[in-house]
C-alpha cells in the first residue's frame, strides 16, 4: 500500500514536471512567434506624429532593443515571484489580468460544469435505452452540435433569446467590481460555449458506457436482476469513468479557446479581448501572461482528470 502511494506521488511529480516543461516551451514559442510578426510593440503602440527618435526611445524603454532570448529569460525570471512584466502601454500585466482572468475562468468553469452534468445525463439516458428513439435522437443531435463553431451558436442565441424574445441580456456589462453585473448575463455565453462540448462529451459518455456494457461483470449483474439504475451507477459508470474524464479534459482546452470568440460576441469582460488586442499590439508580456495563467488552469484540470483515471483504475483493481 505504502509502495503504491510513493509510486503514485512519483508519477504525479513526473507528470507535473512534464506539464511545466511543456508550458515553458509554449511560452518560448509565444516569444518567438510574436518576434516573427512584422513590426514591434513600440511601433504598434506609437501615436501618429511620434518621430522615429521618439519611437526608438520608447523601444529602449520597453527593452525591445534586447534580443528575444534575453527578453524571454528576463520575463521567465519574474514568473516565480508572480511578476508578469509590464505591457507596452506601461500597465503591469498582472493588474491587467486581475479582472479579466477570473471572469474567463468563471465562464469556462461554469461551461465545464454544465458540460459535465448535461453530457453525463444525456449519455446515461441514451445508454439506458440502447437503440431506442431517445438514444437515436440524443446521438444525432450530439453529432450535429459538436461540429458547430461557438460563434455561430452565440450569434443564434443572441438573436433568439435577446433581440427577439427579450428574455436575456445581449451583452455582458461589468459592474464596479469588474465581474459581470448580473447572473442573467452569464446564461447565453455559458450556453454558447457549452453546447458543442455537450455534444462531444455526450457521445463519449454514451460510447464508453456501451463499451463497458460488454464487460462480463455487467452481464452478471444484469443476470442477477439488479435494477438498471444500480447497474449504471455501480457497474457501468466506474468502468467508463477514465474515458469520460479524458473527454472532459480535452474539452477544457476547447472551452478556453472558444471563450475568445464567445467573449467578443457578448462583450464578456474576459481575457479574450485582452489577448486579441495584445496580439495586434505585439505586446508579448500580455500574451505570455495570458498563456501562462490559462496554461496553469488547464494543467490543473488535466491533473485532476489524471487523478480521477488513476483512482478509477485503482477501484477496478
Amino acid at each position: 500500500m505504502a509502495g503504491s502511494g510513493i509510486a503514485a506521488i512519483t508519477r504525479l511529480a513526473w507528470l507535473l514536471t512534464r506539464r511545466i516543461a511543456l508550458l515553458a516551451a509554449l511560452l518560448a514559442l509565444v516569444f518567438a512567434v510574436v518576434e516573427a510578426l512584422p513590426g514591434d510593440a513600440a511601433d504598434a503602440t506609437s501615436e501618429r506624429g511620434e518621430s522615429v527618435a521618439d519611437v526608438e526611445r520608447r523601444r529602449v524603454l520597453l527593452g525591445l532593443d534586447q534580443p528575444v532570448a534575453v527578453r524571454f529569460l528576463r520575463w521567465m525570471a519574474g514568473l516565480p515571484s508572480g511578476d508578469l512584466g509590464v505591457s507596452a502601454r506601461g500597465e503591469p500585466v498582472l493588474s491587467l489580468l486581475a479582472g479579466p482572468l477570473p471572469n474567463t475562468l468563471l465562464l469556462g468553469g461554469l461551461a465545464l460544469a454544465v458540460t459535465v452534468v448535461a453530457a453525463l445525463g444525456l449519455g446515461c439516458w441514451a445508454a439506458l435505452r440502447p437503440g431506442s428513439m431517445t438514444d437515436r435522437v440524443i446521438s444525432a443531435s450530439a453529432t450535429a452540435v459538436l461540429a458547430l463553431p461557438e460563434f455561430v451558436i452565440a450569434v443564434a442565441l443572441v438573436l433568439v433569446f435577446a433581440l427577439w424574445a427579450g428574455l436575456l441580456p445581449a451583452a455582458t456589462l461589468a459592474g464596479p467590481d469588474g465581474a459581470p453585473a448580473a447572473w442573467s448575463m452569464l446564461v447565453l455565453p455559458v450556453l454558447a460555449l457549452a453546447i458543442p462540448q455537450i455534444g462531444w462529451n455526450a457521445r463519449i459518455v454514451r460510447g464508453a458506457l456501451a463499451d463497458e456494457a460488454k464487460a462480463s461483470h455487467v452481464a452478471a449483474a444484469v443476470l442477477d436482476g439488479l435494477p438498471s439504475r444500480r447497474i449504471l451507477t455501480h457497474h457501468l459508470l466506474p468502468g467508463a469513468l477514465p474515458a469520460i474524464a479524458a473527454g472532459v479534459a480535452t474539452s477544457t482546452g476547447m472551452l478556453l479557446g472558444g471563450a475568445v470568440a464567445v467573449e467578443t460576441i457578448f462583450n464578456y469582460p474576459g481575457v479574450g479581448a485582452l489577448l486579441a488586442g495584445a496580439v495586434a499590439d505585439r505586446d508579448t508580456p500580455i500574451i505570455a501572461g495570458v498563456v501562462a495563467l490559462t496554461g496553469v488552469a488547464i494543467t490543473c484540470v488535466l491533473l485532476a482528470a489524471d487523478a480521477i483515471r488513476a483512482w478509477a483504475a485503482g477501484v477496478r483493481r
Partner: protein
Amino acid sequence: MALLAACGGSGGSAPESAATTTAPAKPVSGGTLRIGALGRVSAITRDPHGTQANESDYLIISLIYDTLTAPGATENTAPRLAASWKADDDVKTWRFTLAQGATFHDGTPVTAEDVVWSLRRLRETPSGAARLPGIKTENIEADGDTVVLTSDYANADLPLLLRLTTFVMKKDTKEVADAPGSGPFKLEWYRDGNARLVRNDAWHGGEPYLDAIEVKIFESPQAMANALLGGQIDVASNVGAVAARTAAARPDVQVLRRPDDMAMPIVMRTAEGSPFADPKVREALRLAVDREAMVKQVLSGYGKVANDVLGTGDPAYAEDLPQRARDLARAKQLLQEAGFDLSKTYQLRTTEDIAGLAESAALFATQVREAGVQIEVVKEDSGTFWDKTWLKGDLYTTYWGTNDSVIFFSSKVMVTGAGQNEAAWSDAEFDETYKQAVGTLDETTRAQALRKIQEIQHARSGYLLWGMADGIDLAASTVRDLPKLPGYGRVQLERVWLARA
C-alpha cells in the same frame, strides 16, 4: 422629430404644461446616462497625457478633465478651461485667461501654475512635440492668472491645436489614475475600462443636467449595437453605419449622424520616383473615381461626396470650388499625356483599422480599371502598415478623425517638411500661402490665404478625398441634445439630458 417631441410631452410630468407642444422641450435635470464606447482592454490608458487608443478612455478622461480649448460648432475653437486668449502682434506669444471659478473636484482652485505643470508634462511625453507643435517646455509659463505660451514661429492657430489633449491636472500630481480634474463630471469608480461618473455641481461651465454617466467599454460595434437594441445602454457612441442600418427599422431608437467625422483619403506619393509624381496622373485618378458610388457602397450612404480638400468641417471650407466629378475620357487623356504605363499593375495598400477602409480600396480599384489603370489591393495588418507603408508607400489609404480645420491638415500633412507629410508633397506656393495664413491675425488676409490653400490642394496635392463618413451614434428615444460635432467633439456630454419617459 415630431414623434419625439410628442413622446417627450406625453410624460405629463413636465412643469411647463401651459407651453405649446411645438416649443422645443426644456432640458430637465436628473437621470443616469449609460453610454457605450469602443475600446480594447489591452490598450487601456488612464493617463490623460498617455497614448489614447480607446474611445472609451478618451471619453472618461474628457468628462473628468478640462482641456484649455475645445472643438466648437460655430467657431472651430471654443473656450473651455481657458475663457479667452489673445496673441501679441508677432503671433508668437499667446496669453490664455482661465475661466472664473474653475476648481478641481477636491475643491481647490485651478491656477495658472497647475496648467503650466500639466502642459509641460504633456510636452515631455514621447509625442509631446507633435501635440504642442512649436512650443518648447521652457516656453510654457505662468504670469499671474494667465498662461503664456510662446511659439517658435508665428502661429495664428495655436488655440486650435490645444483642443484635444491639453488636459489639466493639479500641479505635482503623482498618482495619475484617480487624480482630480476640473471637468463637468467626477469619477466615482473605474474598473477595466468601465467607469461611473457623477455630476460636478461646481463646474465652471454651468451645472450639467445628468446626475451620472456610466461608461461601458465595448470591443466590437456589433456587441455595442446589440446592447443598445436590448436596452442595456442608452447611447452607442460612434457605432458605425452597419449598426445604423440595423437600427433604422426600430422606431424607438434614434440614429444620429454627425457629418464630417472621418476622412479616408487615398494617398498618392508625389515625390520623384513615384508613378504618381506627375500631377496629371493624380488628376486622372481623381477623375476616374466614382464618388457617389463610393459614398453609397462604402459608407452605406452615411456620408457625403468630397472634393479632394481636407478639412471639410472647417467654417472656412471652400464649398464653392468646382466639384470634381467622374470623367473617364479626360482621365484617359491625362494618363496618355503623362505617358503613364498602363501595362503595369500598381499596388494600393490598405488596412482594416476602421470600418470601410479596405472596402474603399477595393471599390476604387474596380472603378479606375475603367480608365485603364490596373490596381491590386494589398491588405496589410495594422502593425505592418504603420511600420512599412505609411509615409513611404506610393499608393495607400489613410484616415483622419479631426476634420474641422483646413489649417490643421496643412500643418500636419501638407506643408514641406511636416512630420507626417503622407504624400511627400512639397509645393513652394502652398508653403508660402500657409505661412501667410498662420502668420496673421488679420481676418481678411487670413480668409484669402485659407481660400488659396484650398485651391492649390484641390488642383495638385497628393490626396484623393472621395467622400466624408458621418459619425454615427445610436440612442434611446429619451436621450436629448447629444453633441452633433464630428470627431472628438462627441465627448462633450455636459449639455445632454434625459426626457422623462
